[in-house]
């Protein structure tokens, strides 16, 4: 959370980590039934060469976007961020980029943990059941894809 360009991961991977949680939370939540409502992960301002990977957009489109940034956009380096389920895809994109560049690109991966917030609203709107908020953690990856400096 203390990293400067922490995943402001737009709406990535919300579905993914949640699934595991909703099943486990169902166990601990009774006797009063709760509805789980996930808030978006915390957003942070992003630069032009930050790419947040999600599971909704087509994979090829995201790959093409990265390629465009590197070739047409004139960026020497880009950062690919993925959260939760999208980690796989972020790695995949980075590797594809590297493969297609015939070794010109290099990768540097970092991982971090992102704190996510869930709202629990009682399904039975009784005075007793009070809405709750809880936090959980999810993993994220930040891959720097860059042309190494010519020395």
């Amino acid at each position, binding site marked *: 959370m203390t990293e400067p360009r922490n995943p*402001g991961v737009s*709406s990535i991977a919300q579905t993914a980590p949640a699934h595991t949680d*909703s099943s486990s939370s169902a166990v601990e939540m009774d006797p009063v039934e709760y509805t789980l409502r996930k*808030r978006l992960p*915390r*957003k942070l301002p992003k630069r032009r060469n930050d790419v947040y990977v999600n599971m909704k957009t087509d994979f090829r489109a995201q790959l093409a976007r990265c390629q465009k940034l590197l070739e047409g956009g004139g960026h020497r380096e880009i950062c690919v961020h993925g959260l939760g389920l999208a980690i796989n895809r972020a790695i995949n994109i980075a590797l594809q980029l590297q493969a297609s560049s015939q070794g010109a690109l290099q990768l540097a991966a970092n991982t971090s943990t992102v704190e996510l917030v869930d709202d629990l609203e009682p399904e039975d709107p009784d005075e*007793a059941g009070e809405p709750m*908020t809880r936090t959980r953690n999810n993993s994220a990856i930040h891959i720097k894809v860059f042309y190494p400096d010519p020395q």
Partner: protein
Amino acid sequence: MSGAKVKMREKKMRNQPVSVQYPSSSVTVQSSPVNGGDTSATGKRKTPHHRGGWVRGHQKDGGGYASEMPKYITAGAFARARAAEVSAMLKAVTKTTGSCHVFGALPKHMRRRAMSHNTKRLPRRLRDVANRMREKSLQAGSKKKKEQAKSKSRKARRRHGNLLLEFNRRQRKNVWLETHIWHAKRFHMVKKWGYCLGVRPTYKCYRPCYRAMSTHCLLQDLSYYCCIELQGEEDKLLASLSQLTNKETGPTFSAALCLSGRRQGSVVVYRAAHYPSQSLGPVTFLWRPRAQGSTHRQLWIWAHPTIKQDLLSELQTVCQCCEAVVPPVVPVVMPPAEMPPAEVALTPQPEPKSGETPEAIQIPRTKRKRSRKDASGPPAKKILGDGTRCPSTPITWKSSSTGIVINDLTMEIVRYRLIGPQSHSVLAETLEAATDIDEINKSQPSSLWWPDHCKDKNKITLHQQQADVFNTLKGIYSSAELPSGTVLGLTVDDPRLTLPTKKGKALPCVQQAQEVDEEKRRELMLRGVPEHCCQSFLWEQSVRDNVTDNKISEQELNRMRSEVLVPGSRLRPTPLQGRVPILLVHQPGKQVGHEMSSWGAGWDLMLPKGWGMAFWVPLVYRGVRIGGLNMSLKHSQNKGAPHFPHDYPDCPAGVRFQDEQEAELMDKFKRRPPAKRTNYIKHGCLAPFRCPWQQLAEEWELITKEGREEREGDSQTQNTTDADTVMEEEMASHLDISVTKPASRFSVLRNQKSLRLLSGWCRPTTSKGQRPCRIRNVTALDSSAVTSFLTAHGMSLVWVRLSLMSKGKPELHAMVCVPLAEDLKLLSKESNGHSPQEPPHKNHFRRRKKGSKKAAASSLSSDKTEGSGSNIPPATESDLTPSAEGPKSTSQPSTAVTFGLWPDPLPSITSHCSRVTLGWVTQGDFSLSAGCGEALGFVSVTGLLNTLLNQPKEHRGTLLLRNPTSLHYRFAKINIEV
């Protein structure tokens, strides 16, 4: 000679001079000896046929004129009789009709364009005449306007006092909001609900506004919403309010978090103990945080102006508050008796300088009305008024039994809505927590509220805590990160003091905050604002009035600014009057569904009245977009939420809205030339301008009843795929029953549990239907579950979202239909662009209309048999509408038949087209957030369940959508979002 001819002849003869008698009998008798005894001719003249006098033209029987010339005429009488005729003729000659132009005298090849404007294009000989005629026509045109000519010069009219009077006159019927003049310069205004409201800006900004909502901030003036204040003991308030709501629809007034005052809540209100029918509409409410050790509570209910009256009367009955409290005389300067009757209630705010001086000078010159006003005081600037009540009605009601007081605070509080993820940074930049005052001022007694409060240590600490919370807001990146509905009370400085010199865009400044701030931010995100910080002095009437009365005028402020040493620098110290209590309320964004969650979240800003413009302009200077009424519609559409009053067909306000909308659409339709109108009959669209929900619900109720009986009788040999056609037939045969049956009103399903169940049965997917979403513990969809569901919720509609699976843009009142089995095959084959089509319908009314015209003509020629023959409906080969014939033929007085529209008693709606209709779309558009066509509307619960039951599992929840002006069906995925 027929009767008509005789009549005409009599009319013609009425004004004939008596002196000349052409071939009348007496003359002929006289002349016969002269003519030399042409007895045979005169004998013929005497036949009753020509008895009446002279006859036009040559007579066949050779009777020449010469023989009938009078011998003599009396000159005086003859001339007198002609005089009238001549004068009429002269008058007709001098009068120019509309199209009589001078250049009509010119041959066509010599005419030029714009001759009528520029007379120099005419040949010189005609110029004089043309000039004269032009002047004449100009005069005639301006005559009407001349009568109400502006008596005063523009300068006089624009003088401040006169302008105010004019403004007050103009808002007698429809009240202006405080930002009216700002809006009127930039927006298309409409008069609606007793207010003048901006619909859309005059410049093009549909997409920029959407972008503002999803990335920056959109500002709206929602001051037209009505606020009703309830005061009383907490338990008594809750007991009476609980009659209006039901727990099944979600949290009510008594939800714990709302009751503490930390969150704003929203409920759908029903008439007392009438749930689930007779809903009134949605309201939002806000409790004032508890004061220490007191059970006395204060509650604000915000409602749309269209339901205010209903809601108020309902509240009065449940609270047993019927004693109207006469408004205290103190705030009213003008006695109500002296006010003009049409004037809306106003609490005059004495304008310190600008209002009074011109008035005083002008007294001698003013008219009766003006002088009367002057006698009672300076003209009040109408900073408030109310379009929904008349001046004499009380605004406070009290109950002796329960001790509850109801207060109507309409137009007392200004409410602005900021939509978008950056709305909090706009607020943070615009507002500044009120600064403390120095010691000298503190010691002096003051009439203002802030110095008083500064003396109290508790209040100062509270203010500091609130300011702290407000400052942490700046460290947040998006408004959606906060718990929805959070409330924050605050006192701020006059935002005019910090007005930037240039318009800019407010952006968040998320920096690496210190540990302490980080901790605070987390606390705010998780828990929201602590309870004591939700308190605001805006709740107190006295403070509100004090702030409103002591506002520094713009003029005074500018004068103070001009005295500052460094031009453009901030005014220091802040003038004492410049502290305003406000209330910030977080508005949740999209809460339902799986996608775009918390889209469109934002903040509401509540201010005391009179301060509207003082906050509006500084907000605008922070780079927000301004939206009108149509943007709030789009906002709720993107949120997937029903918009009031458009999407509440079961509320009285919603019904009224539908009627208005129908009339409006009908007008628009009729304005087109008949040949250019859409022929809705051919498109198989029964009701393009309205949605007959009641009939829909009734028909589906009937279908299921029949289906159930059938199933029992046939011992379930019925194939599921045939069900649709069977339904149609059933419908056809039983329509007449449904018409006669006294039916209960339909209702809209709002029971959360049932909705959740229904949602699971629809096989929820992501928007375009690519990926299924996970559903929790759902009972399997089978006939027994459906039956039990339907017994609980028969005759009800359900709010659904439909996203198109391929191209297409749904429109208003598009039909939601059930696909046939063949259609679903089409879908699975991946045949792109192939969607089912509706075969064009035949227009039976066209022939019939012609026939009736013919009948009318022939009846004149007294051909009765033919006329009655053509009234019989033409041979009914109506394979498409077999059931329609019965009601149609009865409805055929055909006086109000508009070409291309079905006449009134509609035939069976469900089975009219080749695909069975389930419901209609009330909002449809290309959704910029989903990237495909999206429609929101209602479908019949009964119909939906029947359809789902009959559909194969992989295609469950796939429906068809057809626009009223098109024959193409489009596949759409249904989603019920809870």
